[in-house]
């Protein structure tokens, strides 16, 4: 019984996350278009794209690693999703450790790298290099932001942090965590692969980098992965910095849950919007510029936050 219930929950979360993720992708395209004074595609365009990719009649592969890397990436993203508190429905929120989730959110990239590199395409190699250096660049401010959180709350459980915020107010209302949140938000920009830190895919320059070789169902799976990752990353940010959402105002648990999801969705969308705006305004950084940028201001801000939180 337990197992079936858990499985059902997991499935619901997964479907919800995928759907919202695709919506986010649609929103990104629309908003960007509007900033560019274009009309833009309909919001469900990414879903159509993905369905088209998945239903292609012919796919190519470069070997076992090529296939497995993609599957692994999606699998790991689903794994990460399960650990992030999503109001009252999340499954493994008791184990939703900050460090664990931070690592889990990075794993899918490893699968994509493996798949991309095994294709032998030099652009993929170049893209992998840039992606890794971006990762290296963002890791320092990201680390400090996480450290600040851990120190501030004295616990690593995301769920407990969410609960604490229900009584103490949002994390960003205290100075150390505000600093951490600013840094983390800058980091998110690179995690989403948005400008100015999109050099790893650099469309038009290195032919989408790691993505260059994927097509057909491989690309389709990666689209799903991207959608879920988008959802998971925004959700994580909303949870740790924006107070998450635990609504118990209504009598019915179902309504409570739905309300929670709505609140979270609003917060997630807000996070996304900030990313889109920044992305639409700034031009692309080269990799060493990106590294120098991240190792300077975000790092200083986040470190200040962490040190303040430690005191």
């Amino acid at each position, binding site marked *: 019984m337990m197992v079936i219930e858990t499985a059902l929950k997991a499935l619901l979360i997964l479907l919800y996350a995928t759907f919202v993720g695709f919506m986010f992708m649609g929103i990104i395209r629309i908003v960007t278009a509007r900033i560019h004074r274009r009309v833009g595609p309909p919001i469900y365009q990414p879903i159509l794209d993905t369905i088209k990719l*998945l239903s292609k009649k012919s796919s190519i592969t470069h*070997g076992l690693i090529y296939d497995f890397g993609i599957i692994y990436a999606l699998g790991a993203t689903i*794994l990460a999703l399960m650990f992030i508190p999503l109001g009252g429905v999340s499954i493994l929120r008791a184990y939703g450790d900050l460090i*664990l989730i931070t690592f889990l959110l990075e794993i899918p990239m490893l699968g994509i790298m493996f798949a991309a590199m095994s294709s032998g395409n030099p652009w993929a190699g170049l893209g992998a290099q840039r992606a890794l250096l971006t990762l290296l660049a963002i*890791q320092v401010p990201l680390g400090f932001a996480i450290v600040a959180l851990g120190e501030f709350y004295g616990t690593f459980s995301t769920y407990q942090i969410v609960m604490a915020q229900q009584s103490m107010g949002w994390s960003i209302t205290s100075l150390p965590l505000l600093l951490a949140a600013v840094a983390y938000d800058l980091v998110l920009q690179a995690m989403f692969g948005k400008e100015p830190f999109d050099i790893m895919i650099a469309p038009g320059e290195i032919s989408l980098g790691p993505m260059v070789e994927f097509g057909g169902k491989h690309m389709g799976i990666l689209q799903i992965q991207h959608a879920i990752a988008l959802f998971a990353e925004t959700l994580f940010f909303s949870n740790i910095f924006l107070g998450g959402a635990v609504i118990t105002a209504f009598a019915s648990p179902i309504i409570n849950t739905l309300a929670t999801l709505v609140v979270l969705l609003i917060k997630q969308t807000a996070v996304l919007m900030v990313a889109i705006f920044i992305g639409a305004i700034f031009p692309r950084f080269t990799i060493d510029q990106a590294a120098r940028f991240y190792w300077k201001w975000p790092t200083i801000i986040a470190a200040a936050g962490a040190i303040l939180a*430690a005191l």
Partner: protein
Amino acid sequence: MINELMIIIFAPLLAGVLAWIFDVKGIREGVAIIGAAVPLAYLIQAYQTLASQPSIQYSIVLSGFKFEFILYHLSWVFAMIAGVVGFAAVLGMVSTAKDSYEWLFALMSLTGVYGVFLADDLISFFIFWEIMTFASFMMVLKYNRKASLKYFLLSVLGAYAMLIAIGIIYAKVGAFDFTSVQRVFYQDAMRSVMGSDTLFSRNELLLIFGLFLTAFGVKAGTFPLHVWAPDAYSETNQSYTAMFSGVLSKAGVYGMLVIYILLGTRLMYEFGNIGAAPKFGYVIAFLGGITIIVGGLLAALQEDIRKLFAYSSISQIGYILVGIGVGTALSIEAAIYHAISHALFKGLFFLIVATIIHRTGKTQFKDMGGLAEKMPVTFAMAFVAILSLAGIPPLVGFASKWLIFEAVIHQNMPILGGMLFFGSAIGFVYLIRFTYAVWFGQRPTELDDTKDAPLPLAIAMGILALLNVVFGIAPGIVAGELNKIFGKEIIQGTIWELNLGFGRYNGLFITIWLVVGILIAAVIYFLGAKVRRVPVTDTYQAGNPVTMDYNLTIRRNFFLPLKETLAFWLRMSFDRLYQDIGSWVEDLAETLRHYIYNGNVQAYAWYLAAILIILALWGV
């Protein structure tokens, strides 16, 4: 009946000597494997004994010194690291060792390590330390004089530092055994609390600490004493390096723990704390943090597969030092846990490197590529090792790193926390470089008939890979043993789970949900159309055909942008500094000799006169 501790310590050496004397292919390998297996068997057996009694002890008197040995939980854990990884390395050497010389010294160094771990007095600790250093040095000497000299000089410098520290302690304590020394320092700490005169003054204490730190720092490869490691690790039989990096470096780590055991209380009272961490430990932790970063960055920039992993090894040891330095029971447990995982994944990595070099004869990234198809077994092992080192759950590397992260951040140490995060990213960075250059991309045609790992190496890798997985999924097995060291439940939870109270990690759940996730992804994958296999040359190149005439894989200077970003820092090098000091000493020596022993007998007669004048002055 010979004492079992003596068997554990000397069985490898005996086997080594026998293998050296009976230099027959087949026999020497057999003897060596037995020599490595016997201590392991005895250690496993000792586990039962230790369940009923706290320790196994043995002592012997030689040359006026009483040598004491002890096997208790802490030394058992470290000895097991040596046992398992040493055994795997010996198996690997069956495939790669060229002559009996290597057998002798490889096994001798194993004896040295066992001795260090089981020693219960400073003199045996020192002696086995020296044996270990010497034997490993001989392993390097055969391959490269310069690398071995650098290694030996720094090691001996460390050993002499330790010797002086031991001498100072002995002069005041009058005994060498750990128990007495520990007691005296503890009493001293109490005295300093009471405000009465202490046996060791503050400066002496600082001196002893500094000397020990130098000694153990060299062996562990702590910045800035790490310069020997990249050369020494790479310029020897790579199967042996599995032991060298996996086990011998742990002697340095163990030494750091010995500092805690012997001097901990006194140091803590004398120098106080920063936050919750003892100040003296903070020195260790901070050096560890810098080691992580320096080792990791340099690893990413290497063009030689052996050097990449040598630097990576240094970087990973940094984590252990951070854990030890923070100095809480939890962080020390975390550090020991990471010592175990370091031995497991680093041992595995060096065996993989050994296999690659054994089969291809190449060491530079630029000569490799596309080997995943030719060496699937080795690649699978590499996959496990990469996931483990990069700290991907549910492998052992994540469990231990996670513990260190939590332990450090929970003690409110922001800077160290940042260093740890940076270290985990840089780990990703250099591992992908290795993966890309060796396994993927177009394969140079000369590697087309590369074979997969020979059986002994495959078995050795299999053992280590299996443990990497098992200890990751069931981290509680290790945590249970670590708790015994402190005698209390510092890390709670079941065998699947680590529960610190402020953070939880469950290896089993992660495994289950990862499998679930992968199954879901696989279902989507298999619902799609059938795939068609295409060769490596059939990639998107804007319509430009790719041929095997041009190798389009980026193998050299993969992280060129990183190098450019770090250009300023890369100009500084401790290695060069030491080399400059070395040649400066040589020049000075030559000048001195030239002027003093100038061959002129009149000058010599003047020396007599000078001394006579000194005597006269002194006399009056």
